């Protein structure tokens, strides 16, 4: 069932909004704990926290900025005592509504818990607080020749805590894996207010792999207060290539053949014509304006291995009629190529008042078919769509342009988005590769999971967060939707 076809909410909401008296009491307790400076509750202050980078919004009652794990514990205990929901928030760059407090309550913003606690180069580990900005970790490691691999496009602002919550990916996860492949242990706070260490510094901790379970649980099981990550040596050589194609099919067939040939580059990103035009207007990265698609590819590793990979990739591109293949001559040019890609979402803002981004994944061999279907679906709703995505993983990001001032347009966008995810599911894929389910794709969970599958997942929430104190009303199909539609 599509989100647009849902009956109006008929079930009792999980949480009632706080009364003014209760809110005053909660604010007082929180202010005693953290100091008035770190407790926000006026409409003006709260406005910033009612949205993330998704399409939904809902205002919290209180926003708190803890400085320590002990603060978080105390906040959770206050929330539990008053039966007020708690939603953790990093930088608010999430694309599925993970940080939106559907039922209001307390939002814990981690801006003050943003420190690197420890770096151990001998053992290639770092311990960080959840509010640390992703890129800041690599910036700290780079001078010594190391970095942290997962690199979501929002890495200049998104936090590692948020990355852990969503199991974030990024362009360079093709060979190196996503967040879960780089986290060994966590310190968490449970809904009872217990501080628990899971996993650790070493491998294969006996017992269930709780770290693996919690990464990507979208704040619905616990609140993360410390993260132990793997770090790796910077590669010796990096070669970045841009291949230009006159048809989408040629570009997607190139991707399929590169993967099938056994060459697995560090990244393969695709941008289509609409995105290229937006990006060029914004970044002037030197992309052609009249091409159907561009592949941005990167090979990295030892000089010798990279040279061989580049040769092979170039020859596959040529075989599929690439108009040109350009290799970045130096680091400046490489950064320019990438800035075009990483700013793509922002660039689209120049040509459309709003856009809606999907995150389906399909088997890489199905890319040509699925991309065609995405185009057809959007055309059938009279919507413009651009594609900028992690082609090497088969992870699509169609950006559907719209203007919510036009009556009915938001609903058409939702319908188109839903149909695209149906196509992804039918092609053997999934509804989200890295953005998470959140609020946005709750109903679409039913496209890939049946009742039993979902019941088993709910057992997990029942074990950890039975009263849904943490991030209530997310992840699973709901009988009714309570968040307001974002009005832009």
């Amino acid at each position: 069932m599509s989100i647009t076809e849902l009956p109006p909410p008929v079930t009792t909401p999980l949480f009632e909004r706080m009364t003014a008296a209760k809110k005053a009491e909660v604010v007082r307790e929180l202010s005693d704990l953290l100091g008035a400076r770190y407790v926000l509750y006026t409409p003006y202050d709260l406005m910033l926290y009612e949205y993330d980078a998704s399409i939904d919004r809902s205002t919290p009652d209180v926003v708190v900025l803890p400085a320590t794990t002990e603060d978080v514990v105390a906040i959770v205990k206050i929330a539990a005592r008053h039966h007020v929901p708690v939603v953790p928030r990093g930088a608010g760059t999430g694309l599925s509504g993970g940080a939106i407090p559907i039922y209001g309550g307390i939002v814990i913003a981690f801006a003050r818990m943003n420190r690197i606690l420890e770096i151990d180069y001998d053992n290639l580990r770092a311990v960080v607080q959840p509010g640390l900005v992703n890129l800041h970790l690599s910036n700290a490691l780079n001078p010594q020749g190391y970095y942290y691999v997962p690199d979501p496009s929002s890495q200049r602002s998104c936090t590692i805590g948020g990355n852990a919550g969503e199991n974030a990916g990024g362009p360079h996860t093709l060979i190196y894996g996503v967040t879960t492949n780089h986290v060994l242990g966590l310190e968490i706070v449970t809904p009872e207010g217990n501080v628990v260490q899971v996993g650790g510094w070493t491998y294969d901790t006996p017992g269930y792999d709780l770290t693996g379970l919690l990464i990507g649980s979208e704040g619905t099981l616990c609140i993360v207060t410390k993260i132990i990550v793997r770090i790796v040596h910077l590669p010796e050589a990096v070669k970045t290539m841009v291949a230009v194609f006159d048809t989408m099919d040629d570009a997607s067939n190139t991707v399929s053949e590169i993967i099938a040939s056994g060459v697995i580059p560090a990244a393969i990103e695709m941008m289509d014509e609409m995105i290229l035009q937006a990006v060029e207007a914004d970044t002037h990265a030197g992309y052609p304006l009249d091409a159907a698609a561009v592949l941005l590819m990167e090979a990295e590793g030892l000089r010798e291995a990279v040279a061989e990979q580049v040769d092979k990739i170039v020859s596959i591109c040529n075989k599929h009629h690439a108009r040109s293949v350009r290799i970045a001559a130096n680091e400046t040019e490489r950064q320019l190529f990438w800035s075009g890609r990483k700013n793509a979402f922002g660039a689209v803002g120049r040509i459309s008042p709003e856009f809606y981004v999907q995150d389906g994944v399909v088997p890489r061999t199905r890319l040509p078919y699925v991309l065609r279907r995405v185009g057809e679906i959007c055309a059938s709703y009279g919507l413009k769509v651009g594609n900028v995505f992690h082609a090497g993983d088969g992870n699509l990001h169609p950006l559907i342009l719209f203007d919510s001032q036009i009556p009915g347009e938001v609903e058409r966008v939702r319908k188109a988005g839903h149909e695209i995810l149906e196509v992804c599911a039918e092609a053997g894929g999934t509804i989200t590769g890295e953005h998470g389910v959140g609020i946005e794709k709750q109903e679409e969970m039913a496209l890939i999971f049946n009742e039993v599958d979902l019941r088993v997942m709910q057992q997990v929430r029942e074990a950890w967060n039975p009263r849904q104190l943490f991030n209530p009303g997310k992840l699973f199909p709901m009988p009714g939707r309570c968040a307001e539609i974002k009005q832009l």
Partner: protein
Amino acid sequence: MVEIETFATSIQQYAPTVQLTSEPDELRNYAVDGLLPRLVVIPDSVEQVAQIVALTNQQGLKLLTRGGGSRINLGGIPEQIDVLLETTKLTRLLEHEAPDLTCHVEAGITLAALQAQLATKGQWLALDPPDAEQATLGGILASNASGPKRLRYGSARDMVIGLRVVQASGDIARSGGRVVKNVAGYDLNKLYIGSLGTLGIIIEANFKLQPLPISERTFLLTFLNAADAMQTVITILGSLLTPSAVELIDARAASDMSDFFGLNLPTNGYTLAVNFEGSAVAIDRQSDETRSLARKNGALLSDDLTGEAQDQFWDVVREHTQGSVTCKVAVLVSQVASYLQRIEQVCRRNELEAAVVAHAGNGILYIELRPGDATPRLVEAIRELRLYAQEARGRLVVERCPIDLKRLTSVWGEPGPDFYLMQRLKQQFDPDSTFVKGRFMGGL
């Protein structure tokens, strides 16, 4: 309690093709830590597995799943086994989407059989635990088995992209999917991997695959002491070099390998085996640099292995992680050298010998203690070694040991403060304790 014969009859009614065994002589072959199951069932479809589990659950019986049996003795002593379900007839490779570098298998296929089929398309599943001929994929996942090449490729948690699992109720649930990137819903794959069948029975799995390496070479370096060897490992790991495996072998393990397998390893000091995969030109360069930094750290001589000699070497190394008393210790790489000294001290104090093979790049040591019948001394040694591991932020698991010793020692170590969360998961997934208890951490 239900008569097991009645139970057997009802299984046959539901699924006449299920192979059943209740002959005492045959059951003996299926003993787990000396405990005999009352009935062995060998279904030939996943639907049958589901039916059998549902029936077991309804009758209040206890069920244990077994693949090839190579690691069936891992874990604590089982409480009671009514039904032992063997998956070895579920051997189909359901799909190998070679251009997508993914595959979908039934859980009873052996690792060797799967690799042989994948190799026809130039690919492999990058898992290299011991006993590939016997071990099934289901068993490898349930016991989270791994091998030397985990340094490059990671372990099962890094390659499983989807699972189908029979729940305690007999329902079949899917987690993940067949694409390489997927964050829809909780990542239950991680929860099932290494859970030793206590939450469900893995019946199908989807994997991410790797292209077979173009070529491969192994360098053997010899060091007089562990500190020099491990300094070399740390330098390699922090360098540009990209080894697939870095294995440390102590003198006693080297001597065993030479005696029994005809390998010619130096039997004093420590042998470091460094494996590289890739193109010849990249390997050449890495070999030069490895030798040069090994020399700086006092390496005595170096040799290299290719082809069959190399394959045989790694087979022997893998098998050597399975003595009659073997502890698996995970510590930080920087602590491996001092931990090796601790092992010597502990053995001296307790009049024991140790033979050690380590995935040195991951900080994982397999310590064989002997003689295997010195039970009281072994108990004490394991206690001390576990303490030292914990001091080094690590853990010790007794992977293999005789049952007498198992009765007197904790296989997994004392559960930590996160254990209550594991108990709650077990309670949710298996409220009636249909899956045999006693083997997993804390008796789960």
